């Protein structure tokens, strides 16, 4: 089966799913979080190391559909080595993309900043799948909060 143009499964997603990046347990880390999507059972455990306001390293393990796994892999590529501020801003953009119900209304430069993550645009048309794509991103956000002591909840 050839992937058709409007498929949710862009080649890039399948590639990341088959060969995920940053998968594995980090030995040296500042925070670990475990997130579950209760409606479908997808889960991810994510460890992070923050140094000088930067995400120095990140590693994850978990199980789930190709969307959640690939999205976590793409996210890892994007944030490792970037500043915490940029990572959280990117997370915001990705969230906005996922909530767009198929109508990406990000500015052009914002879209560009998302790089490979833009491949998940098609997911936003499927409310039941949005949480899959967000799983790793939300875990990263919590982990950053807990590593920097910002706290996730009030």
């Amino acid at each position, binding site marked *: 089966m050839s992937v058709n143009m409007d498929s949710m499964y862009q080649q890039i997603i399948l590639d990341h799913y088959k060969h995920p990046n940053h998968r594995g347990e980090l030995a040296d880390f500042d925070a670990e979080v475990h997130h*579950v999507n*209760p*409606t479908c059972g997808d889960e991810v455990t994510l460890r992070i190391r923050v140094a000088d306001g930067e995400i120095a390293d990140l590693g994850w393990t978990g199980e789930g559909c190709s969307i959640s796994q690939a999205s976590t892999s793409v996210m890892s590529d994007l944030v490792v080595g970037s500043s915490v501020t940029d990572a959280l801003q990117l997370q915001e953009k990705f969230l906005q993309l996922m909530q767009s119900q198929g109508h990406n209304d990000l500015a052009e430069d914002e879209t560009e900043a998302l790089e490979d993550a833009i491949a998940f645009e098609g997911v936003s048309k499927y409310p*039941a799948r949005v949480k899959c794509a967000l799983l790793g991103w939300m875990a990263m956000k919590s982990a950053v909060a807990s590593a920097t002591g910002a706290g996730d909840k009030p």
Partner: protein
Amino acid sequence: MFDVEVIRKDFPILSRQVHGVPLVYLDSANTSQKPQVVLDSLTDYYTRHNANVARAVHTLGSEATMLFEGARDKVARFINAPRRDEVIFTKNSSEALNLVAYTLSNATTTPGAERFRVGPGDNIVVTEMEHHSNIVPWQLLAQRTGAEFRYIPIDDEGRLVESLIDERVDERTKVLAFVHQSNALGTVNNVEGLVTRAKAVGALTVIDASQSAPHRPLDVQSLGADFVAFTGHKLYGPTGVGVLWGRYELLADLPPFLGGGEMIETVDMSGTTFAAPPHRFEAGTPMIAEAVGLGTAIDYLTAIGMDQVQTHEAQLTAYALDALAQVPALRVIGPSTPVDRGATISFTIKGIHPHDVSQLLDEQGIAVRAGHHCARPVCLRYGIPATTRASFGIYTTTSEIDTLVAGVIKVQEMFS
């Protein structure tokens, strides 16, 4: 520009004949008629998008979910809710009010919900002009918890005895539930006074807006209450759907009401955790098509403009009160002036039972309601078994009111 003749064309049922004469539908407080666009949206939903919501990953399921959740957005905007997830879909107003009452008694056995507990020594207050749907749930809550059930009385003109509010609502009051606009009297209550007193004593406030939502702009933020309930079938929408709006901060801490699919976070035989609002309070497959239809009704009303609706109905009310005042032996039950009242007028006619009045009006094509209008304490208060009630909506005309008045006079002739 509000043009009632244009609006009437949107309602297919208004061209019906009854007993060989054109229908004059003056029973909108009981249920409203539906514009064609609402029926079209039901048909469109079922013929193109029908699927279960929230659960499915397929195209139809996604479309149905977006339509259903889109309806929630429309409701949220219509009532100026601060958050869309404060809008809970129920089957009608009655379920919405019971939902609040049951979550409060459920708090009694739910760890973490202590702040909502109601028990012996506490009291729950309503008013004497409530619909049964805003009386019985609270009587049952009182029975379940041992709390006391109280009410604020009404005066001869059908208004709350405001001087008694401070006495009835006291430091042990846990809930004050009251109607925004009375379905039996037409009275529009002074929300601010009631909410202020309830807040002062730390009571939760529940507004039954079943009869106001269809007739005036409704802004839950300016009402200031904690919960607001209304029903779709009176709001030009389908049967089978209602709304409970609640402050998020309260909904987030309240225990669930009905258990089932979609209201859970995770289920396990040893225990279950619950979803965030609004889904926590929406067990099972919701009334999908009905919510979508209600959303369409809201679009329709918004296009007309709720302030236009209010102005139109205020004119009808003034016109009808004047016209009915000319009928001998007719007594209006409820405010006799068009101030702080809605387009619902109850009356009695000396010597003729309301059932006979209504039935003989029906034989002239005029649909009005007779009875206690599910607000029997109001009839008890005025020592009458029932009233005849004419109630208006966006499609009502002054000439229909003329027909009503002429009809009543004919009934009187017949019984003289």
